[in-house]
């Protein structure tokens, strides 16, 4: 009893700053020059560009005044990227030229998919370090197969009623298998919160769609398809904007509710606790203005959008760190494969939980 008591008393948590110090103009230079070099080298330089971009965002994210580091080497990424491209070309050629053989390829892909997810998460974790200690990911193929293939099928069979629970399971898989050095991340996320978020999304979607229909009805005086013919280009653009606004609002609600819940219910025991206090409206404004700026600038506003998004995330995050943070051991061995990571990139699979 006594021993237990003293060891608990030893742990003291202190509030530490979470900062992002990246600047739009600085990152613009990095980004545009790297895109040019990637084109000129027929894509080969893109591996270096990826490393530089990630290093910029990691190195400018500071927790308790210590920066994160991105450890991947460009050649690792290049190798993975070439393999992913070869695979993508083979897959596209087979499915388009030999559709029936392509069907078998697609089935094989279902079994490959969990492996890509696990490899990608492992690579991302191991290539991230903080205070010279690397993160790690311990998820297995079997668990990933259940979580990312079988559970979504269950979700669909239940007419999506089980989907919020499936999404919670996916986040849980990612979070509970993450470790910082030897220290596992503990997570206490609740299914209830996912259903609440889904319910809000549903309500807003229904109201939004009803509002759009009402506006259209008022504007053209009916829902006869023939009436739409008269819509001017300006009206088409306005319609498109309302449609995108609804999509952004819905995704902002889900993202904000889930991120806050995930941060508030996950911790490195005795080491670090987090809080997230994002709110829907500012985040909605952020992503919609990013979208408009990127469109109006034909893509050139991308670096600015990326920087202010990262800054917003840092500003809405609080952390408390214990006096044990100085004594975390890194037991990661060397890890070389980046195929999973890049395959995940090429097939556009995003599994990040936060």
């Amino acid at each position, binding site marked *: 009893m006594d021993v237990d008591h003293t060891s608990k008393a030893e742990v003291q948590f202190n509030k530490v700053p979470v900062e992002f*110090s*990246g600047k739009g103009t600085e*990152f613009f*230079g*990095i980004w*545009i*020059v790297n*895109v*040019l*070099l*990637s*084109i*000129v080298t027929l*894509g080969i330089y*893109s591996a*270096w560009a*990826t490393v530089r*971009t990630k*290093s*910029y965002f990691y*190195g*400018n994210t500071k927790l308790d005044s*210590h*920066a994160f*580091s991105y450890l991947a080497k460009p050649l690792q990424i290049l190798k993975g*990227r070439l393999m992913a*491209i070869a695979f*993508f*070309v083979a897959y*596209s*050629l087979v499915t*388009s*030229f*030999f*559709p*029936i053989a392509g069907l078998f390829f697609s089935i094989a892909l279902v079994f490959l998919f969990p492996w890509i997810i696990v490899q990608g998460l492992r690579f991302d974790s191991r290539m991230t370090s*903080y*205070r*010279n*200690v690397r993160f790690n990911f311990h998820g297995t193929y079997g668990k990933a197969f259940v979580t990312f293939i079988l559970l979504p099928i269950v979700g669909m069979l239940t007419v999506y009623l089980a989907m919020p629970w499936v999404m919670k399971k996916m986040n849980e898989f990612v979070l509970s298998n993450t470790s910082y*050095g030897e220290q596992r991340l503990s997570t206490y996320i609740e299914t209830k919160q996912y259903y609440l978020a889904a319910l809000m999304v549903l309500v807003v979607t229904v109201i939004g769609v009803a509002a759009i229909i009402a506006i259209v009805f008022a504007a053209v005086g009916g829902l006869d*398809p023939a009436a739409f*013919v008269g819509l*001017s*280009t300006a009206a*088409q653009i306005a319609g498109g904007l309302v449609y995108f606004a609804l999509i952004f609002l819905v995704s902002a609600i889900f993202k904000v509710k889930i991120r806050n819940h995930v941060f508030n219910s996950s911790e490195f025991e005795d080491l670090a606790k987090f809080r997230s206090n994002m709110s829907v409206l500012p985040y909605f404004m952020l*992503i919609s203005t990013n*979208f408009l700026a*990127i*469109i109006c600038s034909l*893509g050139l506003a*991308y670096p600015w*959008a990326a920087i202010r*998004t990262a800054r917003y995330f840092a500003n809405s995050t609080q952390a408390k760190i214990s006096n044990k943070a*100085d*004594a*975390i051991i*890194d037991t990661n061995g060397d890890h070389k494969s980046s195929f999973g990571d890049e395959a995940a990139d*090429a097939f556009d699979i*995003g599994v990040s939980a936060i």
Partner: protein
Amino acid sequence: MKQQLSGTYYFPKTSRAQSVELLVNGEVVNLYQNHKCIMATNTSQLSVSSAIPGVALEVEFLDGGKFIAANSSDRLSLANGKIERLEKSVKWVLASVLMVPLLIWFGIAVLMPKLVTESVKHLPDVVAQEMGEQTFYALKKSILDPSEVAKADREKVISQWQQALDQLGLSKDKFTLHIFKSDFFGANAFALPDGTVVITDDLLISLQDKPDAILAILLHEIGHVQRQHSMRIVAQSISNSIIIAVVFGDLETVAELLVGTGAALVQNAFSRDMEREADNYAFEKLHELGIPATAFADAMQGFLDLNQAHADQPETEKKGLMRYLATHPDIEDRIERANQYGQ
């Protein structure tokens, strides 16, 4: 040359950190903590991170220890700073802003189509054959139903088709005509890369008393086969996806959406070009057969009438912004081009 940086030293394999001064003097590297030397090594025992604007320099030691500079603009002459100089140079950044859109346009709109058109010519015939056969099989299993048009009417169309093939010196084995009923396609005709041509009941019925118009459409479909259009579309969409994925590897969803939309618009522009190419093929072959190109205009007019009758595809749809979303050129343009060719 002597260089001194202040920063944090992280001990090997732990999160233990210490404020230190890093001193590099020629090949000798020393770490000082409160003016006390805690490590002495040389430049061959460490690796310095590539310099990136706004990112603090990192020095990794062979034993797993790491030094991170306190000031993000401090650099060691050991670090490779060539790229950083470009990224910080106003001249290079401005040049990139001009060059990047130009090069992307050139790559996707000029270079790739040329390469793709040339390279699909070298594809072995068996690829087109397999692709055609497998697609045909899949379509028959899904959205094509047996024709309900009277047998005599069907035979009339097929014999007219075979006559035309003979006159044009095209292989009857390669170009086979099939008639199906399809609710999915409605009034339509399409060709598969192996030369299989399909025309639907609805189209046949709507052009019943205009055999030349039917022939014009079928010749347009042969044009697609002869110019290897399906192969080019497949090869082009694959190569565009790769270009976009490689050049913009790190884009976020919104930017990806934008780039994807751009790629789709370019793809549709090619599709419209290909339709025009197939139209031209049809005009030429009609001319060879001694049929006026206006037969093609009749066929297109048939589509227009059909659309107006159903009103589900208003003719104004292809005006305004929607024009860029279309995979086919404006029907009225196509009619006019056919009429012009006839004159």
